[in-house]
C-alpha cells in the first residue's frame, strides 16, 4: 500500500503541475518589457517588421518536443478523438498489423495534424462490423462520432490499399474496421482517469464487460466524460459525455447476433485562427479571437454541439468451415451544429480582429519605401495601444452588443447583433454484407456489398437574439442592390419579411440526399511467403439537393428538387509481394479508381440554389507504389515509394467577396493533383528492452494544372467563368516532410520513450480567389529577365522545426489479477510555439472595387493555426 500511496502523491503533484501549464504556454514569446521599450524608441512600422523577423529566426532555432498521447498503438490517437472536423482534413489514419510506419505515424505526428501522403481524409474508409461509416457528403469519417470511446473502439483491424482484408474495400488511404461486438472485450472492469492541458483537462472513463458468458450472451458498456471549464486555449470549454452499450448473443456455433449503440453528446467551444499581426499584438500564438466578456464572464461565439447517436445490428453467420457471412445494418442520426455571431443591417463587424481594427490598416507597413506621416503613425499607435493595453479590447465585447440591441429596441430598430446556429444534421442508414470464402489452401476471397442512404439537413436557426426584439429574414447584402421593396432580398419569398424568433429556421434550409451502392471483391493468393492480392469494386451514387425555402435571389430554382445526379464509378488494384529471401521482401502494386464527386462539392451555392456544378464528372485516381522490407535479426526496416495522380477533381470555396459585398462561391472543375514521396521506418532492437527507431515521411503533394473556375455571387450580379492558377499550389494542412528519431526502453514494468521530430514544408490553404485569372490580371514584364510573367501570389509556407516528446509509464500487477497502469506523456518539451499546423489565405482583394489600393494588405495576412505549446497528459488506468 505504501508503494501505491507514494504513486498517488506523485500523480497529484504532476496533475497540479499540468494544470498550471496553460499559463506557461500562453506567456508572451515577445518579452513585454522589450516591446514597451521598442514602442518608445522606434517607429511603429519597424516594431512590427522586427517582430516578424525575430519570429522567423526563433522558428528555426527552437527545438521542441511533441509527444504522442499514449502507448497503445491500437487506439485512435487523441488528435483524432479530439474531433477535428473543424479543420480542412482531419488526420487520416490507417493501421496495419505489420507495418511499423503506418502503426506509428498516426499518433506520432498527430500534434502537427499529419496526414499520410497528404491525402484528404475521404480516401480513408472507416468501417464498423463491416459497414462503411464515412460521411457521404464530405467523404470523411467523423471522429467526433466515437469521441471519448477510446476503450470501446480499441478492437480494430486495418489494411492498406494493397493489402487483403476481409471486411471492406480500401481506397488509396487504406481502411479500418472497428469491431463493435460486445463479446470482443475482456471480461471485467476498467476505469481510467486522465489529467491534461489540452482541449479538455480531465477525462474519466469506465468500461465493463461480461465477456462471453456460458449462456451465450455478452454485454459490454463503456462511458466517459471529458471536461474543461477552460481548455488550454483561452476562452474554450469542453463538455462531452460518451456512452457505448452492446449486447451479443451467440445462438449456436453458426449464428451470432449483436447490437451496439453509442453516442457522444458534446458541447465545446472553438479556437479561431488569427493573423500573425494579431498574434503579435496579443503576445501569443494561442490568441483566440472567438471569445469575449459578458457580465465579466468569458463567452465564446463559436460553440459546437454534436451528438451522433448510432446503432449497429450485426448478424454473423458461419456457413461452414470455408464460408462466413457478416451482415450489419447501421443507423445514425447525426446532429451537428456550430454557432456564429451575426450582425444585421449596417452594424459594424464585431470581431475584434476585423482587419479595420488592426494597426496595419493605418498605413501600408509592408511598403518599406513608404514614409508614414505623423498622423498615420499616431493612428497606428492608437490602434496598437488599444490592442495591447487591455485584454478585453482584443476580444469580443458582448456587453456592447447587448447594449446596442437594447438601444435599438428603444429606438424601434431591428436587431443588430445575434448568434446563429448552423446545422448540418444527417440521417443515415447503411447496410453492409461481406461473404468470406476460403477456396482452398492458397486462395481466399471476400465478396461485399454496401448500400447506404443519407439525408443531410442543412439550415440555420436563431440561437440567441441577444435581447433584440425584431429580426427580419432578409439578405442584408442584397438590400442596397435591389431595394428594400424587392423580392430579391427575401431569403424566403413564400414568407416575406418574416420575423424570426429564437429557435426559428431562417436564412437557408435544404436537404442533400445521397444514395450509394458499392459492390466489391478482394482476392488473396498466397503460396509460402509469396502473396498476390487483387480487388475491384463498382459503385453507384445518386445525389440530389432538395430546397425547402424559395430564395428571392433564385426564386425559380431554389425550392424543390434539383433533379438527381447519377454517377457510376469503380476501380481495381493489384499488389504483389515478392520475397527475395527470408530477410528481404519487395512489394509492388497499383490501383486505378474512378470515383464520384462529393455531394459537398457538387452543387453551386447550395444555400440558395438547386444547380449542379457545370461539367461535373467523376474523378480519377491512379496510384503506384513499391516497398522494400528488411527483417534481419534486430533490424526491421521498410521503405516505400509512392506516386498518386488525381485528375478531374471538383472543389468548391465559399467566401465573402468585398468587391461585390456578397457571399460568393467559386467552383473549380478539372483539378489535377500529384502526390508522391517516400516513407521509411527502421527499428533497431539493441537489447530486448532497448530499441531505437526512425520514421520518415518525405513527400510532395501539389496541383498540377490550372482549374476551370466558375464564380457566382449570391445576388447573381457576378456569374462568370474564369481560370484559376492553381498549378504548383501545394496541398495544405499537413507537413509534407515529417521525420522522427526515437528511443524506447522498458524494464521491470517501466516503459520510457522519447522522440525528436522534425517537420517541414507545411503549407496553408491557398486562396483560389486570389489566383483567379481576372484577379491576377495581365502579365507584367519582369524587370530582370525582360520576359512576361503573371503575378501569381506565392503560397504561404510555415517554417520547419523540431518538436520533442517523451513518455514514461509503469504497469503494476496487483493481487487478484488487478492491474494499475500509469502513463505520463509530455509533448513539445522544448515548448516550440512557432510551428503552424495550417491556416488559410484570405479570399479578399488588396484592391478596392474601383481599382485603388487598400491600405491593409490581405495578401500579406494569412490566418494561421499553431501547434500546441508544451503539454502533458497523465493517464491512470485500473483494471479490476
Amino acid at each position, binding site marked *: 500500500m505504501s508503494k501505491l500511496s507514494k504513486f498517488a502523491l506523485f500523480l497529484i503533484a504532476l496533475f497540479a503541475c499540468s494544470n498550471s501549464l496553460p499559463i506557461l504556454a500562453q506567456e508572451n514569446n515577445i518579452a513585454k518589457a522589450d516591446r514597451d521599450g521598442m514602442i518608445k524608441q522606434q517607429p511603429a512600422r519597424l516594431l512590427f517588421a522586427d517582430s516578424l523577423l525575430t519570429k522567423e529566426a526563433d522558428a528555426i532555432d527552437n527545438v521542441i518536443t511533441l509527444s504522442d498521447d499514449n502507448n497503445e498503438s491500437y487506439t485512435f490517437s487523441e488528435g483524432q478523438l479530439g474531433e477535428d472536423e473543424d479543420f480542412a482534413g482531419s488526420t487520416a489514419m490507417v493501421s496495419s498489423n505489420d507495418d511499423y510506419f503506418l502503426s506509428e505515424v498516426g499518433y506520432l505526428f498527430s500534434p502537427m495534424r499529419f496526414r499520410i501522403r497528404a491525402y484528404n481524409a475521404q480516401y480513408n474508409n472507416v468501417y464498423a462490423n463491416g459497414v462503411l461509416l464515412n460521411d457521404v457528403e464530405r467523404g470523411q469519417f467523423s471522429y467526433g462520432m466515437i469521441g471519448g470511446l477510446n476503450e470501446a473502439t480499441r478492437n480494430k483491424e486495418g489494411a492498406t490499399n494493397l493489402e487483403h482484408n476481409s471486411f471492406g474495400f480500401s481506397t488509396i488511404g487504406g481502411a479500418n474496421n472497428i469491431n463493435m461486438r460486445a463479446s470482443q472485450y475482456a471480461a471485467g472492469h476498467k476505469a481510467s482517469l486522465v489529467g491534461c492541458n489540452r482541449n479538455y483537462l480531465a477525462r474519466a472513463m469506465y468500461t465493463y464487460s461480461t465477456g462471453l458468458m456460458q449462456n451465450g450472451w455478452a454485454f459490454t458498456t463503456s462511458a466517459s466524460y471529458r471536461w474543461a471549464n477552460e481548455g488550454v486555449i483561452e476562452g474554450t470549454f469542453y463538455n462531452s*459525455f460518451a456512452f457505448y452499450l452492446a449486447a451479443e448473443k451467440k445462438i449456436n456455433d453458426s449464428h451470432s447476433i449483436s447490437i451496439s449503440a453509442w453516442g457522444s453528446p458534446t458541447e465545446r467551444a472553438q479556437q479561431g485562427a488569427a493573423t500573425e499581426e494579431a498574434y503579435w499584438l496579443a503576445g501569443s500564438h494561442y490568441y483566440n479571437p472567438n471569445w469575449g466578456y459578458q*457580465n465579466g464572464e468569458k463567452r465564446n461565439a463559436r460553440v459546437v454541439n454534436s451528438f451522433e447517436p448510432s446503432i449497429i445490428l450485426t448478424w454473423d453467420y458461419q456457413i461452414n468451415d470455408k464460408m462466413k457471412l457478416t451482415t450489419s445494418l447501421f443507423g445514425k442520426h447525426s446532429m451537428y451544429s456550430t454557432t456564429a455571431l451575426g450582425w444585421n443591417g449596417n*452594424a*459594424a463587424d464585431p470581431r475584434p480582429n476585423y482587419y479595420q481594427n488592426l494597426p496595419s490598416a493605418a498605413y501600408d507597413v509592408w511598403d518599406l519605401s513608404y514614409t508614414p506621416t505623423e498622423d498615420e503613425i499616431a493612428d497606428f499607435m492608437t490602434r496598437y495601444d488599444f490592442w495591447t493595453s487591455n485584454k478585453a479590447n482584443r476580444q469580443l465585447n458582448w456587453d456592447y452588443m447587448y447594449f*446596442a440591441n437594447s*438601444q435599438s429596441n*428603444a429606438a424601434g430598430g431591428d436587431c443588430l447583433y445575434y448568434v446563429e446556429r448552423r446545422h448540418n444534421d444527417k440521417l443515415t442508414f447503411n447496410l453492409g454484407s461481406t461473404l468470406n470464402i476460403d477456396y482452398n489452401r492458397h486462395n481466399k476471397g471476400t465478396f461485399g456489398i454496401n448500400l447506404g442512404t443519407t439525408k443531410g439537413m442543412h439550415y440555420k436557426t436563431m440561437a440567441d437574439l441577444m435581447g433584440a426584439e425584431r429580426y427580419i429574414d432578409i439578405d442584408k447584402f442584397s438590400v442596397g442592390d435591389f431595394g428594400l421593396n424587392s423580392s430579391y432580398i427575401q431569403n424566403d419569398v413564400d414568407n416575406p419579411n418574416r420575423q424570426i424568433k429564437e429557435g426559428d429556421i431562417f436564412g437557408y434550409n435544404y436537404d442533400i440526399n445521397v444514395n450509394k451502392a458499392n459492390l466489391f471483391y478482394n482476392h488473396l493468393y498466397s503460396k509460402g511467403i509469396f502473396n498476390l492480392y487483387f480487388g475491384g469494386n463498382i459503385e453507384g451514387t445518386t445525389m440530389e439537393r432538395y430546397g425547402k425555402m424559395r430564395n428571392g435571389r433564385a426564386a425559380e430554382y431554389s425550392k424543390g428538387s434539383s433533379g438527381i445526379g447519377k454517377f457510376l464509378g469503380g476501380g481495381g488494384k493489384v499488389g504483389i509481394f515478392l520475397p527475395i529471401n527470408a530477410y528481404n521482401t519487395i512489394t509492388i502494386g497499383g490501383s486505378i479508381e474512378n470515383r464520384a464527386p462529393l455531394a459537398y462539392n457538387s452543387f453551386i451555392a447550395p444555400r440558395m440554389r438547386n444547380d449542379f456544378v457545370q461539367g461535373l464528372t467523376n474523378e480519377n485516381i491512379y496510384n503506384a507504389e513499391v516497398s522494400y522490407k528488411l527483417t534481419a535479426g534486430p533490424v526491421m526496416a521498410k521503405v516505400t515509394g509512392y506516386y498518386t495522380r488525381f485528375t478531374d477533381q471538383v472543389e468548391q470555396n465559399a467566401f465573402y467577396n468585398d468587391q461585390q459585398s456578397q457571399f460568393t462561391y467559386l467552383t473549380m472543375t478539372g483539378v489535377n493533383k500529384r502526390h508522391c514521396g517516400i516513407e521509411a521506418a527502421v527499428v533497431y532492437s539493441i537489447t530486448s528492452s532497448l530499441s531505437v527507431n526512425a520514421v520518415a515521411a518525405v513527400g510532395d503533394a501539389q496541383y498540377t494544372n490550372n482549374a476551370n473556375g466558375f464564380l457566382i455571387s449570391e445576388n447573381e450580379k457576378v456569374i462568370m467563368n474564369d481560370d484559376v492558377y492553381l498549378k504548383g499550389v501545394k496541398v495544405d494542412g499537413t507537413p509534407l516532410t515529417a521525420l522522427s528519431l526515437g528511443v524506447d526502453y522498458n524494464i521491470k514494468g517501466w516503459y520510457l520513450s522519447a522522440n525528436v521530430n522534425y517537420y517541414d514544408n507545411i503549407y496553408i490553404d491557398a486562396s483560389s480567389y486570389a489566383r483567379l485569372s481576372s484577379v491576377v490580371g495581365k502579365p507584367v514584364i519582369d524587370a530582370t529577365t525582360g520576359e512576361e510573367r503573371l503575378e501569381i501570389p506565392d503560397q504561404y509556407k510555415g517554417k520547419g522545426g523540431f518538436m520533442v516528446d517523451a513518455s514514461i509509464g509503469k504497469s503494476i500487477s496487483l493481487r487478484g489479477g488487478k492491474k494499475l497502469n500509469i502513463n505520463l506523456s509530455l509533448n513539445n518539451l522544448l515548448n516550440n510555439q512557432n510551428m503552424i499546423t495550417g491556416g488559410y489565405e484570405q479570399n479578399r482583394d488588396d484592391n478596392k472595387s474601383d481599382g485603388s489600393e487598400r491600405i491593409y494588405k490581405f495578401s500579406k495576412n494569412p490566418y494561421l493555426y499553431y501547434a500546441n505549446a508544451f503539454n502533458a497528459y497523465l493517464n491512470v488506468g485500473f483494471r479490476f
Partner: protein
Amino acid sequence: MKALKYLSLLAMLLITATSCMNEFDAPEFENPPYGNNEIGEANTTIAELKTKFSKSIEGNSCEEIKEEIVIEGVVVANDESGNVYKQFILNDSTGAIIIGVNDVGLYATMAIGQKVRIDCKGLHVGGYGKMAQIGGLYNGSIGRMNKSVFPKHVRIIGTPDRTQPEMTPEVIDESYFTDENMKSLAKFVRLENVKFVEATDSTVKWAPEELAYNNVVERNIKMGKKNIVFRMSTYADFANDALPMGELNINGVLTRYNNYWQFVLSSTNDIEQVENNN
C-alpha cells in the same frame, strides 16, 4: 442482472450529462457599457462651440480643442441606412454639428433620438468645405477620430427618444437661405412641399450605380432660386428604391460644401408624401 444495474446507472449519467449546458444571462446595465460615464454636465452649446472655433471652420483648417468643453445634444442623423457614412449629427436647441468617427455601424449606440454628451477636450474641430465638424486630425485637416478614441469622449444618456424637443426640426422656406445662416450650419430642418427635380417618372431610383461618381448620385431640390443638393450614396439601403415623386415634406440636416447648400438625408423614413387633395 449485474449488467442491467450498470446499464441503468449509465442511462442516468446520460440524462444528467446532457442536461448541463452553458447558458448566459443577458447583461443588465446600470450605466451604459459603452462610452465614458464620467463626463459631466454640458457647459457649452453647439452654437457657442461653432462661434468659438469659427476661424478654423471658415478657414477650412483644424485645431485641437484644449479647453474643457462639453456639449450635449440628440442624434438627428446617423449611418443606419448607409447614406451617411462614418459620422452622425448632433442637435441641441442652438444648432447641429457633424461628429466624424472612423467606424461603421455607429447607429448601434448613436441611434436617432439618443441624447449624448461629447467631451470635446482633446478632439479636433475644423471645417471641411467650411462645414463645422468635430473629429480627429487627418493630414492637417479635420477628419474622423479613431474609433478607439470616440468612447473616451462620449457619454450616452438614457435611451433613444424621438419625442424630445431636439427632435423637432425647424420648418424653413426660401428666405432661410442667406449667407449669414450659412455660417451657422449645420441645422436640423424640415422642407415642406418640395419636389425632386429628377423625379420625372417612377423608374428613377435614388442612387443607381450607373449614374454614380465616386459612389455618389446628386439629387436636387429647388426652393425658389436656391438649389439644395442631396448627395445620395450608392451604398444606401434605399439606393435602388424609387426616388419619390410629387410634393414631399423632408426632415434632415442642412449643411454646406463651401458655398453650396447640401442636405443630409439619414433615412427615407424622414420623407412624407404630401396628401394631394386636387
